[in-house]
């Protein structure tokens, strides 16, 4: 079962891919990107002419010896990362 979080996180990127992130003061190293997709924002609901898109990554990441699956989200308009859910 997955749990929903929605916590702001800090993410390191290499070649356009996330490689590690810090969540609740712990550093997670990304081992594998399982899936990646994009959802355009509902631009017609805002007065902004381009509200950007949301990019999702589903990754396998480990902190120490504990490993789990996490869903990360990047919002291009705000430039901020969230940890959306975790399977651990």
């Amino acid at each position, binding site marked *: 079962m997955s749990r929903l979080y929605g916590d702001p996180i800090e993410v390191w990127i290499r070649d356009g891919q996330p490689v590690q992130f810090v969540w609740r003061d712990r550093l997670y190293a990304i081992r594998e990107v399982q899936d*990646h997709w994009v959802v355009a924002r*509902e631009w*017609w609901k805002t*007065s902004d002419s381009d509200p950007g*898109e949301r990019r999702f990554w589903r990754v396998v990441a480990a902190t120490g010896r504990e490993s789990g699956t996490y869903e990360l989200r990047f919002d291009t308009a705000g430039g901020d990362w969230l940890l959306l859910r975790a399977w651990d």
Partner: protein
Amino acid sequence: MAPFIHLHTASAYSLRYGTAFPDALAGRAAEHGMDMLALTDRDGLYGAIKHVQACHDRGIAPIVGVDLVLRDGHAVHGVDSGVHGAERGKRAGSAGHGEPPRVVVLARSDGWAALCRLVTAAHQVGERGEPYVTPELVAEHAVSTGGGPRLTVLLGPRSDVGRAVAERRDDRARALLDAWRSAVPDVVVEVTDLYGYRDANTATRMLGLARSMGVPAVLTNEVRHLHAADHQVGDVLDAARRLVPLHPRHVEHPTAHAYLKDGREMARVAVRICGGDLDLAERLLAQTRRVAERCALDPVEIVPLLDAEDPRLHLPEIGEDPVPLLRSRCEDGLNRRGLDRTADARHRLAAELAIIEKKRLSGYFITVADITELIRSMGVRCAIRGSGAGSLVNYLIGIGDVNPLEHGLLMERFLSEGRRGLPDIDIDVESARRLDCYRAILGRYGEAGVACVSMMETYRARSAIRDVGAVMGLPPHEIDVIAKAFPHVRARQIRAALSDLPELRDSGLNDRSLQTVFRLAERLDGLPRHIALHPCGVLIGNSSLRDHTPVERSMLDFPMSQFDKDDVEAAGLLKLDVLGVRMQSAMACSLREIERVDGRKIDLDAVPRDDRDTYDLIGVGRTLGCFQIESPGQRELVAKLEPRTMHDLIVDISLFRPGPVNSDMVTPYLEARHGFREPDYPHERLREPLRETHGVVVFHEQVLRVIDVMTGCGLSEAEKARRALGTPEGREAVRAWFVPLARENGFASDVVERAWRVLDAFGGFGFCKAHAAAFALPTYQSAWLKRHHAAAFFAGVLTHEPGMYPGRVILDEARQCGVDILPLDVNHSGGTWQVERTTGTGARGHAGIGRGYGLRVPFSAVKGVSDAEVGRMVAGRPYTSLADFWERARPSRPVAERIVAVGGLDALHGLRPGEPRWRPGELTRRDLIAQVGALDRASGAGTAGQLPMGFAERVAPGELPEMSEAEAVEAELEILGMDVSRHVITFHDELLDAIGVTRSRDLLRLRNGAEILVAGAKVATQTPAVRSGQRVIFTTLDDSTGPIDLTFFESVQAHTAATVFGSWLLVARGVVRRTGGRAVSLRALHCWNLLDLDRLWRDHGIDAVRAVLSETPAPPDAAGAGVGGRPIEYGNGYRLSPYSDIGPASGVREGPFLRHPEEPQRRLWHASSGSSGPAPSAR
């Protein structure tokens, strides 16, 4: 590595789906270094020809395919217990949200004909506008008779196979792919990843499926945009196409990735799909290229005109060698037309035939001649128009009736060695019989060889606002008001129009909440919206026609090519323009009325063409209703020019064009014509070509002759040079060629310089004399009918509405010509306007040319009446009572009430509207209207026919008041769209006299510069192209004594535009301008809505009205003055307002969305959205 090739690309010709035009897509592909590009539009090949041309221009190989809805997929037994893919896909709703599955079919290198035929078949099986294919249909077309593959089928994520994969039903996917593979030899799996949720996953598994079954796989990007940012427009189109508001569920691509990516981006996608396996990715890309290579088409095969030297045309078959046949027909023609002994004619014929035979067009001329003969044999009036009138061959074989030798018309303007492309023969027929003509042509040549030409209707301001408003969820009535507030401008001008036009600036549309709607609407600018039948083009090919063009059905069920008129020509198909001309129908109708009423049969083509009375009528500008010369500007011009011969009319028509007006030919011509100044010829040798127009260049033909005389290059070369004059670069090139050559030919420098200045000013404008000659004949004929058979003429004009003016204006003109206007009468009215003999009572009017005749209002003029009702009403005459009429003619209740309200039963029941209103014991119209209700209730109860009508319900005579005269006229305007019993302005006479309004008939007595008040009902507003680059509003009022022409310059539009466009009855203040012996117009200073003044007068008295009339408008502040917008400037300095030639907005006045409550809702005045001539770039 070899470049990536996009195999799945939708252009804007995927209606309400794509956003980029083929040319832009091909350009971008070339920038990306791609050497091929496929265009696979949805549902048709609408953009295919443009794509092939664009690719050819950029040196890349074109690939063409189509993206079609798939129905009734393979029944794959044992896997899915018979549920069809389509239904399954709808329920599952993945990858397309309820959209049906689709497949892409590409033509292999030898498969163009098969693709055309597949598209035609897909349209044949589907409902109109909803083509689809089944696997069987694809299979039928996919192989040649020899068994070789002709088509390649791409099964992508939207196909039945792709959907099964997405739903994780791998066995089913495998079975479906297997079924496809056994039905069609060339099947490939198409994988796509637009970064949507699960896209990559599905693609990876489709790739796996393909590999495990040994089916090739290709990578595409389902391209529909040029830039990522266009996806918003795509979302709007998705919602508009499905008539739903914007919602994530309604958009097809939830990401912004469906754009034309470059090779590197696509390589990244390939690696992603292949799970990082670079080898596998490389193989996928290589496979994509291999499929592309076997689909590359030869552009010249599809677009023969790319080979300018020797285009392979698809000519009609006529069963024998056309060359000797045409020769012998021409020979016969020489004898029949009495030209067999004329050396000129023989010489000309030989020259024309030489070119025709060299271009292998003999068969085309024979076919066109056969068609015109076919049309005439049906008793349809038929005339040649355009440059075709310049050909002697056309005259000899009976296509046209204008002798080119007589008018100095040149063939080179129509057909010449140097001319690329095909000749255009245009035929005018009666508009009411145009479709009959199409049917006859189809009947003669068979559906397989004939098709109509189509055209794309594109988004303009109003349609774009409507669609965007709907998807943004605005209420429908608000959308309607907003859309109608805009004039007919381009969508991209919306926000500019809002700030430029005074009538919109203060309209309340500048609200911030509408900004998004306008911004998006602008981005729809010019995108194709739907396909329609071209108004005149007919393709005439041979039995292989459908190998060269896909055909679908038009709204009226005609076979219609998916190509527009330019594509058709490029594709090497011959077309004939059969144009419906309402004036031809109107004249045919007039002739029938003359024969019916007077028993005279008139052969209009045999009427002498020098009738003094007719030219007198034209010379005083009394030309309302006549062909070509009825607009305010033309009435002014004919009054100045005073035509006396056919040739004068030809000149008149040619002068009234943007070109001559622009290069100021009108004034010098008129001065020379009336002898105020000597004609001026740059050189003695130019006297001959220019004499007919007193030294002024008016016609294309004269330009050709001037160039020919001065350079000795021959007329064919001269025609080439004339065409080049249309652009600044072309003019430079012609100058560099012309000047030295003319000097070599012995012309002095100053002469050459002067001649060049004339050619330069002429630019690409001017008019083809052949065209004008073809127009002049119906112009004269219509004026002749008006002069000698006024009532019958007006009956034809009112029935077929050929001109710019609404019915009430024509009716008033008839009244002024002495024709009696006879009200609707159930016992006398017919299905169309009819003439009756009268005693010529009250009507004294202009010259009384129509005296002794009356015009009877027909049943068909009643608002809302159906053809079937009109038929029954006419057939049932005579009637004995309202009940009898109700019983036998069976009108609907509202129609019956309207007929009573406008007096249709007055004669029968002895009614008379007017005072006194209360007439005890005497029947009134209102009593009768009440009785219609009673009759309706009685028949509704199911007792009709059993009880005598009288017993149904009794309405006592005199129970209700009679209508006043004003009410009667109001009802006429509302129901018939015209004031029949009295001119509407007469109700305001008292007020108008009190404020001292000048009447139209008294205008001629005023001195130049006098400042006066005028009033009238608005007849027309036009904003034509004028020299100064301003938007000038020309308005014509009618005050029952004649027309009053007003000109509103930009300086007064800030305080007048909203009133001019928004009101119907107007009072205006203006300065008299005498423009000719019999021509007067007014420069407007201010104007008011007469109904507002009337209310003011009733409420506050005459002094309040005078106060309003005497106030000076506040000087507009600098920013808000007049009309904004940068004038469009042409190469020769000609400036044009961006809002010229655009119909005004109809709905705006006095703040947001308010319509005048008393303003009639029907079309009572003319608002031009048409053109005052060809666009400057044309021909």
